């Protein structure tokens, strides 16, 4: 047996070389070179998103229908199917690349005033999980001869009004205690962190450093990781930073990632990947604002159950297997360095609690952010991601469910879908003459369409009669934008000349079917949840819609396509990334942190997968707006006028 040969792969336009063993795929090579290539199916050769151009060399690739003859002539191949047999040069085209890792953040995050307003409305008082206290003590004498540690504890007790027996100090702090107390002439700054009933002394310094106290709030999304740097002496947001979740190279949805982790024994690597994403954002933020990492004293993390498992390197396998059991919903605070996060090595990471395998800390955090626990009347809280999570309830009770909506509204499974990033079309209008106007995030040339744009697109096409209520293209409309490519009809939204990629931006019949199914799953789930509580939509006073659609969401269009129930738009509030908002609140308010925990223990999980009515409800929701028109009177009126 001969030893495996290795070959050199040259990636353009990155100009990165990587050596890889023969027989690996081009996608494998890209992974090892840390080059991002779109791949929804995680390398199964079914999504067709990983198209690259073979500019030099030959590969061993099976024939595929995912590459058109036109593309084939231009040397397009599927990176996941192409086995390496010699040295290659690969050009990663724009639509396959992840460009400019920066995501334009939601206005809520960027605008401190808005954050202040949200915080103000929440009525959480400022009381951060970790505090720096400047304490001045009497120097010991022969008459006042208590030990240094007890002297410090007494000072903390006096300052914080806590019992002595809740204060704990690690031996490593005790070791440096005598030196620092004397060096500081009995005036020191201690950092104390809440750990359940315990108040732990996690750091001690000379002098008054109380003004240098910062915290990090993180939302670990399946797709994006958003990190927010906050000043803990106030509730001020200093800055935010977002990156794509690098785990995407292991599969775009978390079920695929769990399978990948288990099958390849890759859990540790995947944990490192997410930690490295987090560290990168933290480093960017501290560098930009010239903050000492040692002054970051706490981290609060929100995210779905699987992401929290990956972060903590907990076995995620049972999440995807019946009866869907997470390793832990509630995780006690621990030192951030234990999982490799770069902040003050003694300081604490707080992972927010989940409810079940499919209702995670993003939901508990979000429910706290909108103060569902204070609502007198019934409210509906919907967070749309790869799974659509829905909470129904008020201050007395909450039930939640999860609908596998699929990632269509996050831009996956849609030909020109993309995440809400720079260059994403987020608003679309179509006139009666089938002319399209649009705006993109960042006001650059469009590269694709994000959730809010896709939602607009379906609603506008329905209004103009480009599609019928089944979502089928009306082939008799007089517009060159509607054309047949292969066996499938598609509608050109943005011509090649105007787009920021090398092709027309289109929406296909299959895209529409995906989006209709996705909205159908959400509506079916919310209607069953409401019905199972013996209520009707009229009993819902407010609907909060959260998710990463874009910066802007046309709520009316969400009703027109039948994703949200027919109710006055004044009763619907688009609240953006509530997962992050909740994490920020928990960071600066112990009360908020406890509220998230109370919500998590209060919430009842309602399983839709085992509900016999779900399929029926889903089927009748697979229509625009719905098969039961009586549920959408305002849309019937709108469409008939």
């Amino acid at each position: 047996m001969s030893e495996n040969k290795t070959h050199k792969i040259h990636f353009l336009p990155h100009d990165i070389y990587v050596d890889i063993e023969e027989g690996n795929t081009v996608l494998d090579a890209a992974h090892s070179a840390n080059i991002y290539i779109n791949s929804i199916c995680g390398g199964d050769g079914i999504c067709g998103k990983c198209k690259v151009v073979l500019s030099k060399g030959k590969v061993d690739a099976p024939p595929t229908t995912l590459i058109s003859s036109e593309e084939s002539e231009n040397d397009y191949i599927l990176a996941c199917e192409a086995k390496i047999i010699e040295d290659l040069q690969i050009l990663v085209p724009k639509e396959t690349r992840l460009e400019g890792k920066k995501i334009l953040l939601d206005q809520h995050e960027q605008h401190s005033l808005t954050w202040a307003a949200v915080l103000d409305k929440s009525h959480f008082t400022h009381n951060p999980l970790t505090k720096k206290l400047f304490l001045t003590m009497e120097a010991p004498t022969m008459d006042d001869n208590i030990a240094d540690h007890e002297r410090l504890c007494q000072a903390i007790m006096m300052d914080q009004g806590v019992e002595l027996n809740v204060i704990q100090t690690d031996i490593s702090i005790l070791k440096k205690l005598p030196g620092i107390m004397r060096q500081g002439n009995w005036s020191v700054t201690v950092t104390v962190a809440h750990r359940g009933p315990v108040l732990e002394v996690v750091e001690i310094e000379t002098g008054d450093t109380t003004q240098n106290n910062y915290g990090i709030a993180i939302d670990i999304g399946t797709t994006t990781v958003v990190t927010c740097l906050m000043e803990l002496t106030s509730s001020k947001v200093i800055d935010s930073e977002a990156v794509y979740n690098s785990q995407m190279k292991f599969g775009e949805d978390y079920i695929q990632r769990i399978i990948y982790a288990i099958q390849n024994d890759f859990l540790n690597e995947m944990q490192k990947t997410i930690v490295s994403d987090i560290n990168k954002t933290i480093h960017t933020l501290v560098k930009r604002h010239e903050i000492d990492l040692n002054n970051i004293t706490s981290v609060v993390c929100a995210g779905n159950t699987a992401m929290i498992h990956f972060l903590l390197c907990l076995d995620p396998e049972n999440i995807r297997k019946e009866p869907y059991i997470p390793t832990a919903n509630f995780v006690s605070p621990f030192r951030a360095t234990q999982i490799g996060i770069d902040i003050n090595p003694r300081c604490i990471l707080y992972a927010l609690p989940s409810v079940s395998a499919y209702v995670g800390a993003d939901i508990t955090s979000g429910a706290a952010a909108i103060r569902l626990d204070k609502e007198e009347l019934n409210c509906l809280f919907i967070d749309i991601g790869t799974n659509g999570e829905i909470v129904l309830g008020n201050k007395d009770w909450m039930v939640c469910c999860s609908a596998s909506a699929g990632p269509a509204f996050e831009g996956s499974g849609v030909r020109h879908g993309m995440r809400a990033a720079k260059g994403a079309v987020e608003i679309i209008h179509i006139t009666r003459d089938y002319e399209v106007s649009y705006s993109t995030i960042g006001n650059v040339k469009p590269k694709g369409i994000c959730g809010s744009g896709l939602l607009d697109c379906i609603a506008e096409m329905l209004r103009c009669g480009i599609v019928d209520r089944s979502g089928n293209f009306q082939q008799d409309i007089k517009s060159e934008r509607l054309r047949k490519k292969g066996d499938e009809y598609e509608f050109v939204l943005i011509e090649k000349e105007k787009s920021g990629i090398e092709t027309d931006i289109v929406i296909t019949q299959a895209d529409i079917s995906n989006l209709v199914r996705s909205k159908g799953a959400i509506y079916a789930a919310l209607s069953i949840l409401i019905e199972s509580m013996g209520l009707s939509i009229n009993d819902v006073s407010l609907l909060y819609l959260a998710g990463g659609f874009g910066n802007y969401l046309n709520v009316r269009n969400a009703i027109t396509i039948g994703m949200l129930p027919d109710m006055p738009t004044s009763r619907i509030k688009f609240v953006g990334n509530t997962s992050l908002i909740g994490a920020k609140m928990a960071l600066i308010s112990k009360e908020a942190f406890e509220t998230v925990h109370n919500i998590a223990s209060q919430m009842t999980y309602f399983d839709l997968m085992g509900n016999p009515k779900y399929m029926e409800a889903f089927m009748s929701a697979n229509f625009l707006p719905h098969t039961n028109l009586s549920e959408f009177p305002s849309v019937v009126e709108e469409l008939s006028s």
Partner: protein
Amino acid sequence: MQIASIEEKWAGAVKEVTIGATKESGGTRESVVTVGGARCIPFMDFDGDQGNRPVIAMDVYDLPPENLPEPLLKHYKDVMNDPASWAKKCAEEYGADLICLKLDGIHPDKGNRSSNDAIKTVKSILEAVSIPLIIWGCENDERDNEVMPKVSQAAAGEKCLLGVATQENYKTITAVCLADGHNLITQAPVDINIGKQVNILVTDLGFPLDRIVMFQTTGALGYGIEYCYSIHERGRVAALSGDGQMSTPVICDVGHEAWRAKEAKATDEEAPQWGSFAERGIMWETITATTLLQSGVDIIRMYHPKAVSIVKDHIDQLAMKV
């Protein structure tokens, strides 16, 4: 002791659809057929008005069907090559309420007959019989969209029942039925939601709901009749509960489906243990029809004259007309 009434009162009703037009109303039929109108579960006349009694449409093909089992062939071999005589026989000898002309011959795989051929067949049947006509396309979308408009126009004014409109292909046939004053069959694959959706799609085009008859496709005894039964039943309960989009009468295709079953087709030599070949198919068709009658159907397409006469008797008895 007083016994509590167990009468069920329903809020809704099945819409009435009239097929065929007499001279006075612009056609040439001597009689018309009105179906629907029920305000209660089938044959539960103590609950409410049963509406119009279910009717039998007998199938006639524009080209001779292949491999017709002997018990059927016996009755039709003399007329198989002439749809007009075939229709006449069904109407005059076998007591059909309607004729259902199946235009299989226009299918590209079955003869690819021209629109003119189809028009000729339709006209000859209209001349031969005085009862109303159902005209059913070949279910190849492209051919149906080509031929059905012309056939529809040729029969304009006769208030025929034309089919079928599906979720994927409904515009052309809906438009011509609207223009030529016909009734329309909307088809769904044993699916309440899709059935309703097709009705919404065609009514969106301005087609009146009281000219629609729904077809959920049919499974014969032993070949999925349970699915069919429960879909019809659910549809009927929805209609009676006031769901407007489900309130149209229902047609089913019993003859074709029953005679496809091996139990109907197997000869005495092939299946000696199954009882008489001469009777078996008739029974298969009869049981399929009488079962579906209970689920709430208004028009039954049938093949065999004996089965037709048994089912008609059965309807009379259930409707207490004897």
